[in-house]
């Protein structure tokens, strides 16, 4: 049995670890892209995977996420990650 751990904390600057920003959720339905502020909040959806991507800015990140096949079935939550220097 494996478990995935997504670590959440109200602390904004944990120091030493990677720091994630606020969430944005992307969905593709009938060829239309919808992006909305906030985490993927559908309680019926399960976590299906974690992918780390490199993008120039948030628009590119949204574009990459919207092209993942999963965006057409479920939803993809994007958070910017700032790595410690």
């Amino acid at each position: 049995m494996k478990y995935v751990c997504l670590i959440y904390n109200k602390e904004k600057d944990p120091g030493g670890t990677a720091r994630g920003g606020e969430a944005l959720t992307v969905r593709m339905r009938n060829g239309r892209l919808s992006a909305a502020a906030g985490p993927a909040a559908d309680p019926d959806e399960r976590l299906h995977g974690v992918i780390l991507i490199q993008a120039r800015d948030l628009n590119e990140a949204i574009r990459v996420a919207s092209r993942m096949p999963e965006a057409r079935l479920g939803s993809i939550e994007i958070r910017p990650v700032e790595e410690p220097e």
Partner: protein
Amino acid sequence: MYRAESRRVLATLIRLLGDFDLAEEALHDAFAAAVEQWPRDGVPANPRAWLVSTGRFKAVDTLRRRARFDASLVKIAEDLDLSAGDAVGPEHGELEDDRLRLIFTCCHPALAPEAQVALTLREVCGLTTEEIARAFLTGAPTLAQRIVRAKRKIRDARIPYRVPSKDDLPARLDSVLRVVYLVFTEGYAPSAGPSLVRADLSAEAIRLGRLLLDLLPESEVMGLLALMLLHESRRAARTSPSGDLVLLDDQDRSLWNRDQIAEGVTLVERALASRRFGPYTLQAAIAAVHAEAPAASATDWGRIVVFYDVLQAQYPSPVVELNRAAAVAMRDGPAAGLALIDALLARGDLGDYHLAHAARADLCRRLGRTADARASYARALELAGQEPERRFLRRRLNELPD
């Protein structure tokens, strides 16, 4: 001068400096310098370009000053200084692009909807935080906090200062249009408060719509502007002197603003002719049919039902279905409309929507089903939040025969 130019100059400074707060500070410095120098040395040939380059130099100064405390700013200041030569004479087209960039950035879907509205009114329209807070009946500190958070998010999540590419444009334009329409409806039908309309916000939304159409002549932008103008044209007729709601049927059509109607109708026709129209154009087309009827009894309900059919097919929603049912009732009689509304309520989608119960009550009243009408008016009254609407429903309830 300040209101007209400051937003253009700000939009360009944000692009050059890459930071909202720094750009705002630079804008104030540039205008302060203008107030001091222009009366003495004369107004420069291109005031806008002068303001942009002055703002930029002021920002470099600011960064240098701060750099004494924060070494990481030295490089940013140097880079800005080196590239300063290029931006002295910005072209007209580039400045217009900057305004569009600013709109798309403020309406980015990564920001919460209420933050998009606040940021757009603050940065694009130039309203003060106090003015926006008053318009939305929130405290200024709450609103200021919302704007600060949005700006921080733009920086931290790297929301780019860019007009979306052609592929992304439709989805992104939707969110811009939604913000403009939200501003309009908050002015036209405030969700709370004693007054039925807040003219200032509607006027601001129409100004935004015009600006957007200037920058981006898409058919849905035309449709939205037309929709706002056609609604706005009825403003004077929509409330009685005592502040009560006047239904479309009972409005004094001589009070309607003919110039706004003519402009709205022309825009609708252009948008429909493009054949790439969407929900705003269709709603505007329906408003145009009403606007062109010389009297309520002369309304072309058949045409209205057709537009609702197209709307329902492309963008299905229970509210559209409800409106279609009301139009069918006008075309085919109250019994036909009531059957549609009852089916809709039976599905449970609109059980908590006061207008659904009010519409049902009205049709029952016309059919002489007084007891049903009374029950539905009472339910609508329980759900309605706006004081003038509640007064209207209470009046209707009292007018029912025993």
